[in-house]
Structure formats: C-alpha cells, structure tokens
C-alpha cells in the first residue's frame, strides 16, 4: 500500500476521527481527545507503513503494533476496521456489554490487537518483548509502540527504554503522542516531561521530532525509523488533543468524555467537512 497518496492518507485519518467521535458518542463514554491527536499517525501506520495482512492477523512476519495508551482504543479499532480486520459496522458496539470492542484493547478478543493494554506505562515493555523475540528468531518485522505523553510519567517506560538500548532493539519504534494534555491539564503542570527529547537521547535512542498532523513528516519519520541500524527510535510527534473538531482541540475535558447530544452534530459536521 506504499503508493497511497498523502491526500488519501489524510482523508483516511479524518474518517478514523469521525469513527472515534461516533463510537464514543454511541457509547456515551470513552476517550476521543487522544484518539483524535493520534489519528494521522494511525492512518500512516495501517495504510502505508506497516507490513500486515488484515485477512491473516497472526501472519508471523507481520509488523506488530502495541497501543500503550490503551484508552484511545477507538482510534485503533477504527483503523483496524477500515483496514479490514473486522466489519466497520461493529465499531458502534464499542464499550457495550458482549462487544469485542472493550473500553481498552484486549488481546485475543479483537483481530489485530496484539497486547492487552489500558493500564499506562506497560506497552513499551511488551513491545520490547515482541521486538526481542523477532531478533531471536531472525525475523525482519518491526514493532511499533504508541505512547501517550502523560504516560511517560510511569517509570516502567524508562526501564523499557534502557532495556531496548541494551539489547539493540533497532526493530523497535516508539511514538509519543505529545499533545501536552493529561486529565489534570498541562503535562508540565502535573509532573513535567521536558526536556523530553533529551531524556530519550540520553537513554540511547534515536529521536525524531515531527508535527504529528503533517502527513509528509509522519511518513518520512517512519521511513527513517524503519531503517535504524544501531539504536531504537522514538518519534515524538507534536499534536493537538482533539485535533479536527474546533471545540475539542486543546481541551483536556475531552480526554475522557464523549460529545454531548448538542456537541455531537457539530463535531460530525466539522469532521465531514474535512473529508474529501
């Protein structure tokens, strides 16, 4: 799928956003803010960068994706459904009893979900294990782990970061969704993360900083990360929480709540307007 155009990927990203808003509205709960900030990267991963086969989710040479910020499950489910892992119509069952689409991703329930996540700070360790298995088995697959920025406050991430460097996990790509907001508000007002790039550098990683809503930059960064030779790579993508819906942008309130009846049609209208 590498011949897909930037415009097509941007369109897909906005479709994923629309799904996330619809799903969380139908569920009357969920985490749309961080779903929207991650949407462009998710589109780039599942529709351009990753080597995967939706018809064969356990293909042993597939690239693996671990969503450490598991609360943005809606954007992952939307990407998986649009890619063909399961019917798009299933998305509306998010968070409902009996649905495979649990509030946070569950391995074994959803085709394409590699690991169970939702408790923050654990995905990068899991991704290290997958990447290490790939090295042991002489496989070429990449392991990609998306992290929230607030999540970097969990110490386990830094254990994993040290490990990845020690074990030369050049096949591992971490992506930090740097939207600067956590439930409490500004990450720097909670427990500050900056200087974040320097922290990763000092842990022995390649660091690439991009605008997480610029598709060309996303694709270039992934390409570079995918060709790393000596170190694991982290892409710190500067994003806007709630990106794509004016009143959700940079609004920490939308971290963990769905649109109200009044907000929903406005959000849908704005997002539809972005889709060509």
């Amino acid at each position, binding site marked *: 799928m590498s011949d897909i155009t930037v415009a097509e990927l941007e369109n897909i990203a906005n479709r994923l956003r629309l799904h996330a808003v619809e799903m969380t509205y139908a569920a009357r709960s969920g985490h749309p803010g961080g779903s929207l900030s991650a949407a462009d990267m998710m589109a780039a991963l599942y529709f351009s960068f990753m080597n995967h086969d939706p018809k064969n989710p356990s293909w042993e040479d597939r690239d693996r994706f671990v969503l450490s910020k598991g609360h943005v499950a809606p954007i992952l489910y939307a990407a998986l459904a649009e890619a063909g892992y399961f019917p798009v119509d299933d998305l509306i069952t998010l968070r409902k009893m009996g649905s495979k689409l649990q509030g946070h991703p569950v*391995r074994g329930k959803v085709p394409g979900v590699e*690991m169970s996540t939702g408790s923050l700070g*654990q995905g990068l*360790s899991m*991704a290290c*294990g997958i990447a*290490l298995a790939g090295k042991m088995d002489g496989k070429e697959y990449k392991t990609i782990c998306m992290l929230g920025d607030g999540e970097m406050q969990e110490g386990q991430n830094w*254990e994993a970061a040290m490990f990845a460097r020690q*074990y030369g996990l050049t096949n591992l790509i971490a992506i930090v969704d740097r939207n600067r907001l956590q439930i409490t508000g500004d990450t720097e007002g909670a427990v500050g993360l900056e200087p974040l790039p320097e922290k990763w550098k000092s842990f022995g990683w390649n660091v690439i900083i991009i605008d997480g809503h610029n598709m060309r930059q996303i694709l270039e960064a992934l390409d570079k990360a995918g060709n790393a030779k000596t170190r694991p790579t982290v892409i710190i993508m500067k994003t806007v929480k709630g990106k794509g819906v004016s009143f959700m942008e940079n609004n920490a309130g939308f971290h963990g709540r769905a649109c109200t009846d009044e907000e929903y049609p406005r959000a849908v209208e704005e997002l539809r307007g972005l889709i060509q």
Partner: protein
Amino acid sequence: MTGEKLAQRSYYGKALAELASTNPNVVVMDADLAGSTKTSDFQKVCPQRFVEVGIAEQNMIGIAAGLAASGKTVFASTFGVFATGRCWEQIRLGVAYPKLNVKIVATHCGISVGEDGASHQALEDMAIMRALPNMVVVAPADAYEAYAATKVLADYNGPAYMRMGRADFPTVLPEDVKFEIGKASVLQEGSDVTIVGCGQMVSYCLEAAEELRSEGLTAEVINMSTIKPLDKETLFASVGKTGCCVTVEEHSIIGGLGSAVAEALCEEKLVPLERIGTKDTFGESGKPADLMVKYGLTTADIVEAAKKSISRKG
C-alpha cells in the same frame, strides 16, 4: 534420595538447563538474581535465550508478555516478594488477562529466608497470585517435585506461578516423582485428622504425623502442591474419612493454602479446620530455625493444631 537435604532452586535450575536443549521455545529471564534463583544454570548452557533485565521486575513481566505473545515459553524468576508484589499489576494485565504463556517462578519465599528480614520474606505471594483469574499456583514439596513441576509447566500453555524456598531441606518424595497440575497426593493415610501441606512444610507435616502416631492418632497427610486449581476431590475424600483438617504453609494464613481449603470446606464439606501459617504479621531477621519457632511453623505447632482440630469434631 528421599530425605536428603536439597534446595528446590537447584533443581529448578537443573530442569531449566535440560529444557535448554529439549525445548527451543523456552526463554528464561531474571532480574539480577540469576545466581540465587539458579536461572544461571540455564544461562550457562543457553545464553542466547537468557534475558537479563537488570533490577526491573515490572519491565521483566512486560517483556515476558511480549515474548510469550511471539510464541515463546517464558520462565521469569526473581525472589518471591519482587516476582509477585512488585509487578502484580503487570502480571494481571500483561499475562493473566490474555492468558499468555509465562511462568513466574519465585525463590526465597517464606520466613525461612531468614536474616534478610521482612522485606525479603514473601508471605503473601500465593494470596495475591491466587486472586488472579487464569493463574495456576504451585508450591512443590521438595526439590524433586520442583524439578518435575518445572518440566510440566514448560509443557503447559498458560500463566502459572511457582514458589520455592531458599534453604536446603529434606526431600519427602521419590526422585522420579510425577507432578500433575491440580492433583494432590496422599503421602500417608490416616483416619483421625487430615493434614494438608504445601512447600517445605510438607516435611513438617510428615514429622507431625509420626508424633501423632506415637500418641495413638493417625493423620492423613496430603501434599497440596497445586494451590490453584485446588484438588477438592482429594481433600473432600480425605476429610470425609477423618472429619477434621489442618492446613500448613510457610505463608500467611490469609489468602494462601489455608484460605483455599477453608473456602472449599465451608462451601461444600464443613469440618473443623485449623490453619498453620503466619498470623497476619510480617517476619523479621533471624536464623531460619528460630524464626520458624517464633512464627509457629514447627512440627509441634502442627501436632497441637491437629489435636485441637480433632477435639472440635462433633
């Protein structure tokens, strides 16, 4: 030879070293304690499938989950306190929930860890691991059973926790003992009281049975080497005969073997029950033998509990 003093962890290491050549999927992990847990025996023969994570137990479990999700059979070891409590939530989400093939094998469990004191004496590990859905909990009675259980767990596809002690202590089973998950064994038949033990306390249970015999009482001794799933069939058959029960574990009486047996008996076959274990308390530094006396984990304590249990029969 039965009765010989051997460390369980040495036999764990021996089993792992053998698995290195017989099972290409086995990966062994440790958190800076390989020399103590004896995973170093595997490391020596199979360094390419040994993963040292440094002093980072939470990371170890996450990596173990990722390895298992990629088809590996993972043994992750460190001391009991750190193998369970330090990374319990990582085990819950990463291993137990998705039923991944990770064996958490802890050494240095129980108060007989001795001089290191309470910070290092795991007395709640079985309780917290037993509470996790999908988790098998095993406490082998001696070195031979630890060896057998390691081999069986390598072939079992799912999460499991195995606890072992630090010290050398007498073996009670034959060297070629067979271990089966969820299957207890009656080591000695009797009709006055059922004594259910696990781990190194099984040897004390057998000694207690000897003492009771000298007083004209016969005890049935059960080695409940799997705490979860509990072998209720063997338990109920025994208490059906004896009419009373004592549980014995080097662990808190809250949440471990004593609790598991109490739950089963209360729900289905109510008989008097006495529980030997630490009584809602932390341990402390001291010589293992002295600590066993202070915390009520001796043969004499079991004998006394057995008599009390017998006296409570209707």
